[in-house]
């Protein structure tokens, strides 16, 4: 992992400056944060990891994930993962132009009915992040013969506003015979898309867990009860430790998965991250007491995002089952070596 420290510093500065408590609250009311987006877009952050030849900002997957992690620390309420690592990657891979402004992606939830019939898009897609605010909605759909990458203008669809637990738009999009603005054969299957989506959520969650640990350590050192800082109480210390463990575990798992992007490591990392989302938020809230339940204190910006991202692109059960299937497909005598090597050697038999 040799991400340019300057890139990280820049990203940290941009998101720390723009993702203030007030900005996040306003974004939740308005459904978008133009200020955050503008600052990030000005220096190309959303397009890192997309080749310059395709209209991206260059840099590799590790760079893009590192930026996403910083965004996760600050709860940046913009379609950062969607614009570059997901929609941008799909468009670039299909030889299409990535374009300007925010893009979003149809994540492909179970029950979605979106398909391409006679060159026109029909059906419903749910959980589309910031569908109203995006310049284009990108999807991988079947046309009966194979997978195609399509892009369309949000204005051409019926958008029903739905929010996730963090108040981030995860809209339902209804399409009734809409001709896509762009369309090309896709080399990416919905399964591969889901894996990549999971990887973006792991990076965001690693950042949020890190920030949550820091915030909780600081609060409990300051908050006093019974004549001492609450961090002096063993039961509070236990919460701090569990939270730090989750942050450390998911932090390294995110690095490992981002380095290789192999199915096993991404699946394992998302399984760990989604489980950590539950245990870490519980520990953080308990350590904070009533203060953490208020809107005015920033903990909820992190905890509500973790509760949401936990389920996006597959929850812990989904990915644990997947890891279990991969493990069961290896000859048992070779399993430990496979796990230690992150399944990066020979493919499973």
């Amino acid at each position: 992992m040799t991400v340019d420290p300057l890139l990280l510093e820049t990203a940290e500065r941009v998101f720390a400056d723009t993702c203030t408590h007030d900005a996040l609250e306003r974004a939740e009311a308005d459904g978008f944060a133009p200020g955050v987006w503008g600052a990030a877009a000005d220096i190309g952050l959303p397009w890192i990891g997309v080749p310059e030849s395709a209209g991206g900002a260059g840099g590799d997957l590790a760079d893009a994930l590192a930026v996403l992690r910083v965004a996760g620390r600050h709860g940046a309420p913009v379609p950062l993962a969607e614009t570059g690592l997901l929609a941008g990657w799909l468009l670039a891979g299909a030889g299409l132009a990535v374009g300007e402004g925010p893009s979003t992606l149809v994540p492909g939830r179970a029950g979605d009915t979106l398909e391409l019939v006679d060159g026109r898009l029909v059906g419903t897609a749910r959980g589309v992040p910031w569908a109203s605010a995006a310049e284009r909605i990108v999807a991988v759909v079947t046309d009966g013969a194979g997978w195609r990458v399509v892009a369309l203008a949000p204005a051409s669809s019926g958008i029903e506003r739905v929010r996730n637990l963090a108040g981030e738009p995860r809209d339902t999009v209804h399409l009734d015979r809409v001709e896509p603005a762009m369309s090309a054969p896709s080399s990416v299957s919905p399964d591969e898309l889901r894996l990549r989506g999971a990887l973006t959520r792991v990076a965001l969650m690693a950042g949020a867990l890190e920030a949550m640990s820091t915030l909780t350590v600081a609060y409990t050192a300051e908050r006093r009860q019974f004549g001492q800082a609450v961090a002096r109480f063993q039961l509070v210390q236990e919460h701090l430790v569990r939270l730090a463990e989750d942050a450390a575990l998911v932090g390294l798992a995110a690095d490992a998965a981002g380095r290789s992007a192999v199915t096993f490591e991404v699946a394992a990392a998302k399984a760990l991250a989604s489980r950590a989302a539950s245990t870490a938020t519980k520990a953080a809230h308990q350590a904070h007491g009533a203060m953490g339940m208020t809107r005015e204190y920033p903990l909820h910006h992190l905890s509500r995002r973790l509760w949401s991202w936990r389920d996006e692109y597959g929850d812990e059960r989904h990915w644990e089952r997947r890891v279990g299937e991969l493990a069961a497909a290896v000859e048992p005598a070779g399993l430990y070596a496979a796990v230690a090597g992150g399944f990066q050697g020979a493919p499973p038999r």
Partner: protein
Amino acid sequence: MTLGFELVELTEGERALQQEVRAFLAEELPRGTFEPGLGMDAPADRSFSQKLGAKGWLGMAMPARYGGAERGAVDRFLVVEELLRWGAPVYHHWTADRQSCQVILRFGTEEQKQRFIPAICAGDLAFCIGLSEPDAGSDLAAVKTRAVKVDGGWQLNGTKIWTTAAHEADWFIVLCRTAEAEDRHHGLSQLLVDLSSPGVQVNPIPFLDGGHHFSEVVMTDVFVPDELLLGEAGRGWEQTGNELAYERGGPDRFLSTWTLVEQYLRDHEGTELGERARELTGWAVARFWGIRQLSIAVNRMIDRGLAPAAEAALVKDLGTRFEQDVIAALAELHDGFASLDSQSLFERLLARSILAGPSYTIRGGTTEILVGIISKGLR
């Protein structure tokens, strides 16, 4: 181990009461006509509370001369459990029924009893409780709100936070310092404060989900007449401890997320549940059944005049942690996405419970405080 749980056998009268409440709810509040609450996190509906009052189901343990039903803690348990599991709008009368009437009956003057208890039993008056302050949460003896003796009463200054329902309540029972004392547990008193008094300002504290469940109450030179001192001056600490001990062992401490389980099963009626779904719903139902036995046992002990402080704390700890575990279990089972905007009632309930869940093990005594209380009871 000195904990004294004993299995409760319901009397015929108690069973009849259960049936009566069930019939009332089916009639007054048919399923599907309202968005169910999650335990005590439910809407306030004064007219619904007044109907309960008319049935004799508020302040049930109060003497008849103050408008009560002269029934006991178990009777109240049976009524409240039905209301909560139904998701009924209990918020208006909640605090008054659960604890304010008890503390007034126990420590109030005859005049106070006559003034407040009948109105509580009728569902007319809503109360809230002024304990926590910015620097006094679990550590209540650190309260800084202060009342100074003036002619004919007290002059009250200070700020209370995390006051549930203050914007909808009529009265406020405030723990405040009325005298300096070497032992900081002495010199505290409880005052009954009319929330419409000059100098009382209620500022909402928005909740994590954007809703408005609690408030900051700022009191500036509020005059409280002598006759509204509750109990003895300087004994506020003991009176409050008693009040908290009562409220802890009730059905509100394990039923907040029952609705989730019931709605999950409703959504899957007529389909074969998978292995994991049978396991997790079975786990939840078995535990509801078991914790309920403990909770009702605490209430029988109260009716017998015992002081089950450790037992009530144990039920609260076990029950509220269970409420949270139920959310986790159902979230695990459900394949869709929890959202306040969902068209599925289950997904809305799941979203609300995920957002409110962390408070279950904080409000009414944090888990950390309970551990201390319970372990003392084991010695």
